[in-house]
């Protein structure tokens, strides 16, 4: 095991938009499984991934499940540390106030530390 992995939160970075194929769901699945194994999990929404937190999404056409039901399950899995890249939000005209789940904004100055302090890091 890496020197200090056990003491750190496991980080899943989500950078793909909902309904954009299976990336977002496959990333969330890693987070849920890690949490079920008892790991402390941090989710970082970045790039198009911040769109996952936008309210009012629905299931996709042809009966594709959206990712909102999965996000609703996070608390049940004790995944409570949601972070969102502030610049990605601003670029998309979004503010933390309007997000459907509460997520802590991360400034550009804080971002490297969020990533460096976690292990392992999965980037989807």
């Amino acid at each position: 095991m890496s020197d200090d992995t056990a003491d750190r939160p496991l980080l899943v970075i989500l950078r793909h938009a909902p309904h954009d194929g299976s990336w977002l769901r496959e990333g969330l699945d890693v987070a849920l499984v890690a949490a079920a194994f008892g790991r402390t999990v941090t989710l970082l929404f970045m790039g198009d991934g911040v769109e996952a937190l936008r309210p009012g999404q629905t299931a996709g056409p042809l009966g594709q499940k959206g990712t909102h039901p999965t996000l609703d399950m996070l608390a049940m899995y004790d995944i409570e540390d949601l972070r969102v890249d502030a610049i990605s939000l601003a670029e998309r005209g979004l503010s933390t106030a309007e997000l459907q789940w509460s997520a802590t904004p991360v400034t550009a100055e804080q971002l490297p530390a969020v990533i460096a302090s976690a292990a392992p890091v999965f980037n989807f």
Partner: protein
Amino acid sequence: MASEQGKLRYALVVLGAPYSQAATHSALRFGEALITQGHRLDTVFFYHDGVYNTSRLAAPPQDEPHLVDAWVRLANEQGTELLVCVAAALRRGLLDEREAQRYGKPAFSVEPPFVLAGIGQLVEAGITHDRMVTFAP
């Protein structure tokens, strides 16, 4: 030659893998809609990762759409030809019974109504149909 008011003959080109990308969903919805609008879906050509749409072995969870079956349904209802680029398919492990024999493979993954085809049939589809619309990853 078809008039723009009339019934148009469409070819769809699918370049994206199912489940991984949105291309398949969009193509299926568009295919259904053009039929509803009174046009004809004559041909679907699967190229690049689109060939992954054609595996008879796909086993999606029951609460998700079965995209391969959706193509088969469309073909059965409309007589749409479902062409799978053979060059793109073989290297990706998509082959029919005949190609499986030729390459000494113990099984095959593509069966009718999906038919292996050459790139010439993609070119021809672009030339002979009234409209060609591509759905990509």
